[in-house]
C-alpha cells in the first residue's frame, strides 16, 4: 500500500513529493524480464488412428495453447528498499495476446504429417507500467 500511495503521489506531483525529504519512500524500481505465458487450455495437434476396434487419439503432436500472453520486460516498483530513492512511471507497456490453433494437416505422400500450431495477434489485453528510479531531493 505504501508503494501504491507513493507511486500515485509521484505521478501527480513528483517534484513536490521529492522535495519533502521526510516522505521519501526509500525504494527503487526492479527489473522484470519479458516472458510468455501459455494458457493451460489448448489442444494437441495430432492424428487419430483406429486400432483394435478403438479410436485411438495417438498424441505426440505439439501442444497448442489457446492463448499466449506476451509480457514485456519492464521495471516495477515493488517495495524494494533503497535509501534516498523513489520510483516513478515512465511509460505504459502493452501485454499482447496471441490466439493459437492447430492448422490443417499438410499434404504429404509419405511420412507422418502433423498440423502446426499457429498463433496470430489477437490484440492488447492489458498493460504494465514501466518505472524508473529517481533520487529524492533533500528537504
Amino acid at each position, binding site marked *: 500500500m505504501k508503494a501504491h500511495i507513493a507511486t500515485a503521489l509521484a505521478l501527480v506531483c513528483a517534484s513536490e513529493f521529492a522535495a519533502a525529504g521526510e516522505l521519501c519512500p526509500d525504494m527503487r524500481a526492479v527489473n522484470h524480464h519479458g*516472458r510468455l505465458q501459455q*494458457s*493451460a487450455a489448448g489442444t494437441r495437434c495430432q492424428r487419430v488412428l483406429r486400432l*483394435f476396434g478403438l*479410436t*485411438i487419439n495417438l498424441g505426440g503432436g*505439439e501442444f497448442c495453447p489457446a492463448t499466449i500472453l506476451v509480457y514485456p520486460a519492464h521495471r516495477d516498483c515493488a517495495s524494494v528498499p533503497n535509501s534516498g530513492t523513489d520510483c516513478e512511471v515512465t511509460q505504459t507497456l502493452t501485454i499482447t495476446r496471441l490466439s493459437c490453433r492447430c492448422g490443417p494437416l499438410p499434404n504429404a505422400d*509419405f511420412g507422418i504429417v502433423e498440423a502446426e500450431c499457429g498463433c496470430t495477434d489477437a490484440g492488447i489485453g492489458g*498493460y504494465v507500467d514501466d518505472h524508473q528510479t529517481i533520487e529524492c531531493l533533500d528537504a
Partner: protein
Amino acid sequence: MRKLAVAGLVCLLGACALVRLVRNDSRPAATPDGIRTAGSTPYAELLAANQPSSRTVDRAGASGSEGLDAQHAVALEPGLIEMLEAVARAEGRGNDRELEELLTALVGRIDRLRGILDLLESGAIAENHLARRGGVATLVSAAARWSRGGGPPGLDGPAFVTEMLQRLPRQSADDRALLIAFLSGSEVANSAVIGANQLEVVLALCQDFPEDAALYAQLLAGLPADPAALEPHRATLLAALEGDGPPALTGAVLRALLALDPSAATDAAKDLLRSRPDDPALRGVVAEALAGSAQPERAVDALLEMKDPTQLMAFDALGSRPEARAVVRERYNALLAANLDGRGRRVLVAAMGHEETPVLLGIATTDPSLDVRQQAFLTATVTRDVGLEGVQALRDAYARRADPRNGLGAFGAVASASNVLIHASGPARDEALRFLGDIARDPGAALPYRRMALQKMRPHVPPGSIADLTGLDPDTGDQAGK
C-alpha cells in the same frame, strides 16, 4: 519438446540422415537404481524374460552412455527391429490396416513389449530412427490398449503402463521426450491414457528427477476432474503442492485438488503464493487454476487478494465460466459504490470479457479510475468488434484526456484502437485508422504513444498517406510534428 517431436516425425519421412537427434549423452544422472520400482520388474528379470535363443545386440559402444553395465546385452527377438521399422513405415504411409496388424502382433506379447523397452533403453538402436519411432509408437499403442485393464497373457495391462512410466528415466532424452509427448496427448474414448491411476508414479518421477519434472508433469495434462478417482490420491496431491516443483506440475496438481477439495486447494494455493511471491510463472499458473476451477466466490477473492491486474490468463478463465460472471459483476458494483480498491476494480473489469459491449463501454466512461476505464476499453476491444459506437466512445474519451474523472490517455486510446483494427471491419475499422492517425499527429500526445499509433496503422494504410509522419520513426531521431 516441439523440436523433439518434430524431429521424431521428420525421421519417418525417410530423411533420418538429415536429423541427427541428440545422443544419449543427455540422459539424467540418475541410475535405474534410483527409480522407484515398487511393483515393477527388476531390470535383470526383464532381461531374463527375453528369449534366450534370440540374437543379441551389445549395447556397449552403441550409445556410450551410462545405464546398464556393458556386460549386459539386450536379448533381442529375431525380427523385432524389422517389425518396429515396419510399424514406422506403415504409420508414415498412413496404412492403418497394416499398422493395426503389426501393432496387434506386437502389443499382444509381454516379451515383445519389454523387449522394446529394453531395446530403447540400451541405446542399441540409437541411430535407427525408424525402429525408435516404431518402438515409441508401439509402446504408446500398448498403453492406450491396456491402460484401462486387461492385457496380453502374463501381463497386467495397467501394471505394464506403470512399468513403462517408471522406466522413462532410463530412456534417452529424445525417446523419453517423445514418449511423454505421445502419452500425455493420448486418449481412448475421450479418456486420457495416463489418468488418476498413474498419478502416484508420475509424481514420484517428478520428485526423483526434479531436473525433468516439467517434462514429466506433462503426463498429468489429462487428469480427470473426478473427485472419486482423485480421492485415493489426496495426500499425495497435497504433498506435491507443498514442494517447489515447476509451474506446470503445480498447475496440474492444483487443478486436480480443486476438483477434489476446492476449499483446501484454494487455501493451499494462497499459501503457495505467499511462500513464493517473486515467481511470476508460478503466480500465473496458480491464478489460472484458481480462476478456472475454484468456486466462483473463492476465485474472485483470491484474484482480488493477488492485486495483480496483469493476470489476464486467469481473468479469461474466470470470465469464461458463466457461473462466475454474476459474482464478478456484483463485486465490481460493490467496490464502485464505495469507490474502493481501484486496482481490484481493474482486476474485475479485466475478467469481464463476456459482458455486453454497452456494459464495458459504460464502465469505460464512468469509472472514477483512469486505470479501470483504460482496462474496460481494452477488455471490450480485444474480445469483440465494438463497432462505430465503440470507436466514437474512444474518441470522446480521448477528447476528455485532460479530465482525470472520465478521460482516456493516449496509451489507452492507441492500444484500444489498434485492437479495433484486428477485431472490426468496415466503417469501424476505417474510423479506428483515422483515429490512430489523429493521435500520431497530435503534438500534445507523448512521443512513445504517437510512435505506437504510427506502428499500429502503418501495415494498413498506403505509405503516401502517412508520409508526413516519417519523422516519428525512432531511427530518424526526429520528432515530426513536435
